[in-house]
């Protein structure tokens, strides 16, 4: 728990190496921490700070700016009901209420069994399927109250397991590419090519 270990540590170090400045990895690493623990623990923040050369206060400052990062345990499924304008116009608030009564918890809370956390969310860019629902950032819509209850049932029964990983797992496709070409190398090569082209253009003009 907390600090990256094993395979996740390998991934974390890889991610930190993807940028000219390792601090750029703070957000991806917070996602990775969330993939590991379901939320971003203090230990993870401290570890990320070490990995990228920042202070804990800075990593926390960045992470806490973003809605997707949770700093306390959440349910295995974080269910977001959109109530923004397009969904609201098509019953988003009604759905949120229904969701709340189906799960038995108000928005912002987690069911006692730790399965579900219900959230009211802002527009999830699924407006043509309004009202839209996201479950661990996998989208569903349009959803009505029966549909919502059905979804919850499927989640409980494990029917959606393949489609929806546990909270925190975003893209399951990992980067599979050769190590990055050092930007300095590209800069130098580009300067050389630009120079050549300019010289050619100049000689044509003559």
């Amino acid at each position, binding site marked *: 728990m907390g600090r990256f270990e094993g395979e996740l540590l390998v991934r974390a170090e890889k991610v930190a190496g993807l940028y000219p400045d390792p601090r750029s990895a703070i957000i991806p690493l917070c996602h990775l921490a969330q993939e590991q623990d379901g939320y971003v623990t*203090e230990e993870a*923040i*401290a570890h990320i700070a070490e990995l990228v050369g*920042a*202070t*804990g*206060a*800075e*990593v*926390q*400052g960045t992470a*806490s*700016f*973003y809605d997707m990062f949770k700093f306390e345990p959440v349910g295995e499924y974080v269910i977001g009901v959109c109530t923004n304008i397009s969904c609201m116009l098509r019953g988003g608030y009604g759905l949120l209420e229904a969701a709340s009564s189906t799960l038995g918890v108000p928005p912002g809370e987690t069911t006692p069994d730790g399965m579900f956390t219900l959230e009211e969310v802002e527009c999830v860019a699924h407006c043509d399927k309004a009202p839209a629902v996201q479950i661990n950032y996998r989208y569903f819509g349009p959803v009505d109250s029966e549909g919502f209850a059905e979804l919850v049932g499927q989640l409980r029964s494990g029917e959606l397991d393949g489609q929806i990983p546990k909270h925190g797992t975003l893209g399951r496709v990992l980067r599979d590419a050769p190590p990055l070409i050092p930007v300095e190398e590209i800069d130098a090569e580009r300067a050389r090519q630009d120079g050549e082209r300019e010289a050619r253009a100049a000689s044509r003009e003559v």
Partner: protein
Amino acid sequence: MPDEMVSVTLDGQVVQVPKGTPIIEALDQIGVHIPRFCYHSRMKAVGVCRMCLVEVSGPRGFSIQPSCYLAVAEGMEVVTTSEKVKKAQSGVIEFLLANHPLDCPVCDKGGECPLQDQAFAHGAGETRYVEEKRHYAKPIPISRLINLDRERCIQCDRCTRFADEVAGEALIDFRGRGNAIRISTFSSVEFDSYFSGNVTQICPVGALTATPYRFKARPWDLTQAASTCGWCSMGCQVSVQASQNELTRMLGIDSDAVNHSWLCDRGRFGIAEVNNRDARVLVPTAKANGIRGEVSWASAAATVARLVKQARASGGNASVAVIGSGRLNLEDSYAWAKLALDVVGTPLVDGVLGQGEVASTWFERAASIDQALAARALIALNVEPKEEVPVLHLRLREAVGNGLHLIEVNSTATSLSPMAATSIQLSPEGVGGLAEAVAASLPDGDGDVVILVGGRNRAMDPAITGGILRDLVAAVPGARILSALGASNVHGAFLAGLAPGVLPGAARGAVPSTWRSPADSGRANYAGILRAAAAGEVGVLLLLDCDLEEVGLTPEAIEALGERCALVSLASYESATTRAAAVTLPLATWGEARGSVVNGEGRMLRLGEQLEPAGLSKPGWVAASLIAGDLGDDMSILTAGDIWAELKAWGGAFAGVEPSIFSSTLDGPLLPVARWEAGGAPRALDPVATPGISSVSRQGPDFRAGAVLDPYAVGTGAAPSAKVLASGREVPAAVASERVPMELGVPGEDEAWLILSRRVYEADARLAANPALASFVRGDRVRVSPARLARLGASDGDRVQVVGPVVLQAVAHADDAIPDWAVAVEGRTIAVTHLIDGAGWSRVRLERLDG
């Protein structure tokens, strides 16, 4: 290089302003004060509070722009008086007040609050906000010194920018987003920074307050005076504030030349020890039959005089010796130099704890801080500014950020290391060839090379540093020196003549008529004096604000010394030394007497006075004068003005010194005064940059009429006649003191050279007396190389003992950063200093403790 000027129209007025000036400052210059919160001239503009909006012309006509962020440009027009501007500004004030609590009456900032003031000036006066305000737990301690009240915060980003940008310690940051954005530390990590107090000073509301100051006083009850911080030789300019004869607060004044308004916490919160009367020496005492008893000043002075006479009678002038710490102010130092050298005539005078040799190389080539930071290269020799002259660390960080080339010469890594272009190791083996190595690492180019010299390793005799410094100056022709030597007025003490081999002003000319025939003091430094005293060659040892524990003597050793000779301790705080002394004289401390000091760039700075001296304390020069009187020689010093007249007569550094030099400069003149030219326009005081500094009175050396000695002490009060005893003797040209061999060699297998790094929080008698800071002293720690630890058969975390003049037991840590020849010791107690053996570079043995 003169600044490029641009022509801009500000509220219809066409003015020339240096290109790049923020509009808000250009407006300040013509007397138009734009309200502001986030802007602080010592930090990068962020333009977030939006308070400073004005109308600015651009390619697409006028628009509302933050005047703090936008720089003037040729042809730019700025309007600050339009309805649009006023509406925007009052709109911002209203937004800021919407969630601001209405607790001004109980807020520490009440009465000096920029938000309060600007709301009054630019707000509507009536609230339209009927919604519920934001709520946070309040207040929460974010460190042992700082409290945070989030409800009062206006998110101006000043404290967080300070921590990150200025101090380089981003231990506080915003957290959350939007309306919920708030200042926060990380988890349980304290905002533990030497510079934390600055955030309370720059906070434009009462969100960040200093715990020691909480509810202490209301701004309108405070009196304040300009002064100079008394902790280190940086000479930070401060406003010292008091209420009911107690120091309540210290704020940094924005001195362009020195501290840019910043202070370190050791300095800022140092007032807590001044206030701690329980720890102070309040009355003169004398020992009779081994028992210390209160006596009158007259009797104490007479006793000292009698002891001096007795010693001289039996052992000659050289059986009286003087050791000082560099903490006495300039006036006191001068009077004591005169008493010692001229009245008593002893050659055994070291008022600067062995640092005179470095100082003598420094003085001829002193560089100002600004010169050092603008140098082609800065060579940092045996110095860790963060621990020795903390605010210089801040200025250095900024300078390195602007491209200063830094070369550091230290025994182990310091906070400079990450900033240094080159790090050269200072090891006992290589002391001889060091200068050449440093010279070879200098970057090409024009411009000064400046050496910053300090006393980082306390276990290394300053004479060694002095030797390297001399070599460096020879190897780098034209090099100048900025000094970070310890104690607030060590440079002033040196220039007052209270150091081996110098006379007042470090003058080389004739001895003025007010002196008789000063002794030649170039023979021994404090270590030599202590050796002589231990050998029974000294009858009276006069200790000027100097606790011998700080230079490595154990209380037992001090006690024993007291039996060999009579110790006379002029001191403000009780210590092992005062307890062992035959006579103790209570010394008025910082904040209790006016005067002046000289900082490490040779800048003469004023000391203000805010308190009556505690108990029967007196300024040091008064004590000297009393003793002189009892020796039958009144020294002709009856007022501080007399001292200044004499300083001027000495010439040298003080040629041309006049009381008026303080009023002709904001920053204080650089010595030698004769060479210094007053310049620089006064800075406009920005009340939003430093709330709380408004009515500061500018005090300096005490030239007030009637500020003469106690009538009781001088008896009749009759004016003494000035004696004309001029000898016209030439002063010796060079300082000759004990030289330490430069090839120190390799210690034996089980021996190591000691590294005892100076720290901001050192467990001396003063810090122990400071309730606000005492808890910051770190625990005993011994660090050695993994190899040495392995040779010892010990491992990381085992207990070991370090054997020197004393034995220190502690937990050992393996640390790659420590060279194999060294043992690095950090101490919680003053006992670590007892490992210093007082000769050259202290050597210790490391032993494993079994079990």
